[in-house]
C-alpha cells in the first residue's frame, strides 16, 4: 500500500499538472531567462569584438573644396562618400537610412573664406538618435586636428610658436574594459538561474494550502485518518518537485547556451562540465525543497489564495538579497557563503564557471544549508496544522 503522504503527493501533482495556464506561465518564465541571458551576452560579445573604426562612413557635400581634409579623413580609416548638393530634407533621409555616420557640408564660400583667413564654415549633420556617438566623435576629432594644423601653419607664417595656443595638453586613458565591467555582473546573473526554485513551486504551494482552505476542503481532508505531517509532506513534495524541475531545466538550458557562446571574448569563462552541472543540480534540490517548505508554512496561514500570493511575492525577493549584496560589495569567495541558501548555489556555480578546484565540501555545505531549514519549515508547518487555532480557522 502507498504511504499516506505519497497519496497526497500524487493527487496534488495531478491537480497541479491539470492547471495548464499556470504551468505555461511557469515554463515561459523558466525558459525566458536563459534565452534572454544568452541574447544579452551575445550582444556584449559582438560589441566588444567589433574592430575600432570599422565601417565609419561619411557623406561629404562639396568634397573637392578641401582635398587635404579628405585625405586626413581617409588616413583615419573614415570612408568618404562624395555626394552632390542636398537640401535639409534629403540629408535627414540619408541619415535616417543609417548607412552613414554623419553628413559634412562645405559651404559655397568655403574656398573664398579659407583664402581670406575668415572662419570657413563646415556643417556637420548627424542624427543623435542613431546611437553612433563614438564614431561621430572620431569624425569631429579629425576636423579639430585639421583646424589645429591649419592654425599652427598660419601662426608659424607670422613667426608665432603654435605652442602658445596650447597651454595645457590633455591625454585621455580609459582603463575600463568590457571584461572588468561584466565580471561584477556575472555573480548576480548566475544567482538568478536559481530563482525558479522560488517561483515554480509557488502556485502549487499556495493552491494546496490557502486555496484548499478558501475552497473549504481543508476541514474534510483534516478529518481523514491522516496525520498532519503526512498532509504537509505530501503538499510540500509537490511544490518542491515542481521547483526542482524548474531549476534543473533552467540550469541545463543555461549550460547549453553559455557553453556555446565565446565568453572568453569578454573575459568570462564557462568551464563547467556536464558532470559538474549534474552535481550542482543535485546540490540545489534542497534549495527547491526549502523554498517549497517556506511557502507552504507561510501560505497555509493565509485565508485566501490572493492573500497568500501577495504575502509570498514579498518573500520571493528576500533570497535574492544576499547574492546581490555580495556581488555589489565585490566580496571574495569565502566558506561562509556556502552556508547561506541561494548565495551558496550562486557561489558554487560561479567558482565552477571560473574553473576553480573546489572539492566536495562546498557541495555538501550547499546541500545541507538548504536541507536543514527545509526540514525545520516542514516541522513548523506540521505543528501549525495540528494546532487547534488552525482547525478553528479552516
Amino acid at each position: 500500500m502507498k504511504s499516506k503522504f505519497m497519496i497526497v503527493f500524487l493527487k496534488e501533482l495531478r491537480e497541479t499538472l491539470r492547471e495548464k495556464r499556470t504551468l505555461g506561465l511557469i515554463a515561459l518564465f523558466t525558459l525566458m531567462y536563459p534565452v534572454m541571458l544568452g541574447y544579452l551576452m551575445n550582444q556584449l560579445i559582438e560589441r566588444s569584438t567589433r574592430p575600432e573604426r570599422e565601417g565609419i562612413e561619411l557623406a561629404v557635400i562639396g568634397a573637392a573644396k578641401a582635398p587635404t581634409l579628405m585625405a586626413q579623413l581617409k588616413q583615419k580609416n573614415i570612408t568618404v562618400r562624395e555626394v552632390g548638393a542636398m537640401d535639409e530634407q534629403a540629408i535627414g533621409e540619408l541619415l535616417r537610412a543609417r548607412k552613414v555616420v554623419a553628413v559634412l557640408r562645405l559651404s559655397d564660400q568655403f574656398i573664398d573664406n579659407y583664402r581670406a583667413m575668415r572662419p570657413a564654415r563646415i556643417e556637420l549633420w548627424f542624427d543623435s538618435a542613431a546611437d553612433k556617438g563614438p564614431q561621430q566623435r572620431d569624425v569631429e576629432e579629425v576636423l579639430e586636428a585639421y583646424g589645429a594644423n591649419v592654425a599652427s601653419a598660419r601662426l608659424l607664417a607670422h613667426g608665432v610658436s603654435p605652442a602658445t595656443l596650447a597651454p595645457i595638453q590633455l591625454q585621455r586613458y580609459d582603463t575600463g574594459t568590457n571584461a572588468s565591467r561584466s565580471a561584477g555582473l556575472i555573480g548576480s546573473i548566475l544567482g538568478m538561474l536559481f530563482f525558479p526554485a522560488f517561483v515554480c513551486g509557488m502556485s502549487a504551494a499556495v493552491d494546496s494550502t490557502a486555496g484548499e482552505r478558501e475552497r473549504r476542503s481543508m476541514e474534510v481532508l483534516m478529518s481523514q485518518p491522516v496525520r498532519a505531517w503526512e498532509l504537509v509532506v505530501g503538499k510540500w513534495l509537490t511544490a518542491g518537485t515542481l521547483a526542482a524541475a524548474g531549476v534543473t531545466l533552467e540550469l541545463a538550458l543555461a549550460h547549453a547556451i553559455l557553453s556555446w557562446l565565446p565568453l572568453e571574448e569578454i573575459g568570462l569563462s564557462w568551464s563547467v562540465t556536464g558532470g559538474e552541472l549534474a552535481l550542482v543540480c543535485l546540490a540545489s534540490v534542497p534549495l527547491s525543497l526549502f523554498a517549497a517548505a517556506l511557502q507552504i508554512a507561510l501560505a497555509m496561514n493565509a485565508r485566501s489564495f490572493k492573500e497568500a500570493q501577495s504575502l509570498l511575492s514579498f518573500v520571493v525577493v528576500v533570497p535574492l538579497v544576499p547574492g546581490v549584496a555580495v556581488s555589489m560589495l565585490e566580496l571574495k569567495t569565502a566558506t561562509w557563503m556556502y552556508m547561506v541558501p541561494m548565495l551558496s548555489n550562486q557561489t558554487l556555480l560561479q567558482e565552477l564557471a571560473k574553473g576553480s578546484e573546489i572539492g566536495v565540501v562546498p557541495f555538501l555545505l550547499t546541500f545541507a544549508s538548504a536541507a536543514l531549514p527545509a526540514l525545520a519549515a516542514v516541522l513548523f508547518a506540521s505543528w501549525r496544522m495540528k494546532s487547534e487555532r488552525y482547525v478553528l480557522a479552516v
Partner: protein
Amino acid sequence: MIEVHEVRKQFGAVQALGGVSFTARDGQITALLGPNGAGKTTLLRTLVGLLRRDHGTIAIDGVDPARDPLAVRRNIGFLTDQFGLYERLSTREYLAYFGELNGMDGAALHKRIDEVSDLLAMDDLLERRSKGFSQGQRIKVALARTLLHSPRHLLLDEPSRGLDVMSTRALRHALSALRRRGCCVIMATHVMQEVTHLCDDVIVIAKGHTVAQGSPQDLCRRTGIANLEDAFVSLVGTEEGIAA
C-alpha cells in the same frame, strides 16, 4: 455506538460546549437538533478529534478520539457543512483519493466506488469533473465520499440541503439501508419532517448544553405538544434559529 458524557469546550471567554451528554446507538439514526450557534459544529469536530475537549469523556466504539484520532476517523464518515470537492478531479478520482487515504486500494476500491454510486444513483457524475456541479450533485459526491470506506459511524451535517425530491428519497433509502446494517448515524438537521420520518432518536442542544434526548414521540409527550417543531421551540426556549 457513540457515548458522550459532560463534554465542555471553551474558546477564550466563549463557552462553546457547556456540558453535552448523549448516547447514539448502533442501528439507529439520531437527529441532532439545535438552533444555529448551539455548538453542533464544535461537537462534531470534537467527535472526530479535530478539537480537544476541556472536560468530559467521549467513546466511539470504546475509543477516545483525543487518544487515538486516526482509529476513530477510520470508523467515521464525516460530512461537513462544506463539501470540499476538487474542481480539477473527476468524481471517480476524487473518491479514489479519499478511499486511498482511508486505506483502500486497487480493484476493491473501484468496486466500492461503483457500489456507492449505485446506492446514490450518481453513475452519470462518476467520470465528470466537479466544476459546474449543482448543489444537489455536489452533496451526492460528498456523501459518496462519506460512505465510501463503509464506516460504522456517520456524522452528517445537514445532508439533505439542496437536494431535489428524487435525491432526498435516494438519501433516505441509503440511510435506512445503513441503519439496517447496524450503523450508528448522527444527523444534524433543521428539517423537522425528516426527523419525524427517519430518526429513531433526537438530541436537542441549545447554547452548548444537551436539553433533551428521546424519540420524537417522547419529546412531544414530555412537552405536551403534539407538533415536533413546536416541541423543539419550547425545549430550546427561544424562537431564534428556527427560520432555517
